[in-house]
């Protein structure tokens, strides 16, 4: 069993379309017990058995941490992705038995903060659904700024505004509304922590401005679910388990290793947590590092790889697994 990924047997208790792109899924434990407690910002890894393929995708829990009778996640349909979201949208119905991981939190609130400033882009709103619910329950001081393409794609914007009123500010791209980020960041009281979840470009922009405006790195938290990038198929030899495997075009290296019956550690499957770090024993070719974990130097050295998001092009690759 992999680190931090103990499994839960669940049944899909409800599937609710939210808007043209987003669907919400509800899970309950098959044995009727309560689910494990979690804190706002946590995610679970959902196992999708799609024919002979198994995909494991991480999704933020969006329900209130105060209610663990069920877990809820919201998934945006990605028509050009690797198929995980399409599988969920097309094939998952109430009553289906599924397996999910225990919750893991790589995006938790720093409860020492005097104030929590949250910035969400698009489907990046989901972890904030749980975080705001947690903070509201504790009388916490927060403010949420949410950018979406159009009002109809402002997933849960109505729910949030109804719950929290003026603590939620919306920005619609199609109306040319944009966060006045520098002003927002410069007017926060001392002791504020910043949380951002959304597209990579948005996270990069917010982190860069926060750093330039003097926010200490410890006060800036971010989460980005990077889906593994497809690429050319390649062969890998796993030295410890003595297997040679092929990584398909649409498959991640981590998924290929798992399909071969090896059980490597992982937590985020998005190249940020560091759990899946693997030593390279020998290689002849070019690495395509897509992770945010290893340093530039590590990338250049060719001695390490994060199999959850990174790929390889070339003659041969031997990993210590």
């Amino acid at each position, binding site marked *: 069993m992999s680190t931090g990924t103990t499994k839960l047997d669940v049944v899909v208790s409800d599937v609710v379309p939210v808007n043209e792109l987003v669907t919400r899924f509800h899970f309950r434990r098959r044995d009727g017990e309560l689910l494990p407690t979690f804190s706002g910002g946590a995610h679970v890894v959902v196992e999708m058995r799609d024919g002979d393929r198994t995909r494991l995708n991480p999704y933020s829990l969006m329900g209130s941490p105060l209610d663990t009778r069920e877990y809820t996640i919201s998934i945006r349909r990605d028509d050009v992705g690797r198929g995980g979201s399409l599988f969920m949208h097309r094939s998952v119905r109430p009553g289906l038995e599924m397996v999910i991981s225990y919750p893991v939190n790589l995006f938790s609130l720093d409860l020492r903060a005097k104030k929590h400033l949250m910035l969400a882009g698009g489907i990046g709103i989901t972890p904030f659904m749980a975080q705001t619910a947690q903070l509201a329950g504790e009388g916490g001081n927060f403010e949420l700024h949410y950018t979406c393409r159009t009002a109809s794609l402002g997933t849960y914007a109505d729910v949030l505004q109804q719950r929290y009123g003026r603590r939620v500010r919306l920005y619609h791209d199609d109306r040319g509304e944009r966060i006045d980020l520098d002003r927002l960041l*410069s007017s926060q009281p001392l002791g504020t922590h910043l949380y951002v979840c959304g597209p990579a470009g948005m996270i990069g922009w917010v982190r860069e401005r926060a750093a330039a405006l003097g*926010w200490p790195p410890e006060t800036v938290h971010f989460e980005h679910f990077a889906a593994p990038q497809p690429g050319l198929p390649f062969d890998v030899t796993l030295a410890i388990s003595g297997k040679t495997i092929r990584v398909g075009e649409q498959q991640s290296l981590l998924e290929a290793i798992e399909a071969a019956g090896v059980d490597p550690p992982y937590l985020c499957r998005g190249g940020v947590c560091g759990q899946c770090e693997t030593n390279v024993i020998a290689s002849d070719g070019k690495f395509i590092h897509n992770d945010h974990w290893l340093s530039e130097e590590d990338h250049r050295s060719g001695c390490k790889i994060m199999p959850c998001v990174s790929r390889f092009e070339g003659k041969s690759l031997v990993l210590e697994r």
Partner: protein
Amino acid sequence: MAAKSIISRPVYGTLSPQPGKHHLFIADAEGALAIADMAKTAPDRFFDGAEIVFIPGPDDKHVAALEALKPARFHQAPSFASLLPRLKQTLDNAHMGLRLYLAGTEGLIGQAMQVALDAGIDHTAIQTEHRGSLARRVQCVHCKGITENVTTQPATCSHCGLLLLVRDHYSRRLAAFQGVCINAEDRSEIPPIEEVFR
């Protein structure tokens, strides 16, 4: 530079210019020299957005060195206690983007950090540099009284008079080292008193 011994013992660094819009320096005595040294590597116009609060030694040494940096604001105070209300107010009204730099004695760094933690600044986000005297601020664990500027080992509690072994155990909340009675069994036993925290 104070030696590292146990985990709670604070470790200090070297001031370095941080990105940000407002820079608040709090220093005493030789701490001024840490600021002057840092200024050599600071970007142009860095001190345009800086405020320096300084507690000089008895002979007003180093004041000119700080004034020469032309900070946006310069303020002198006779003691930490006298600048406390002003410091609290500054931090209460401050916004994210303010960077804090503390330089000088451990007592100054510890007490200023205590106020900063209260204001919501994380201790890892504060720049510190130890300069000058190693004198300690010591809390007597028996009467809870705090004695400033302790330089000897053992030291006499200025409140209850017990003879204290000054430990390396440091409380960030109190900004003080812990002093424990050294001759509790037999008060007539007086170990040699040495000046060790000069």
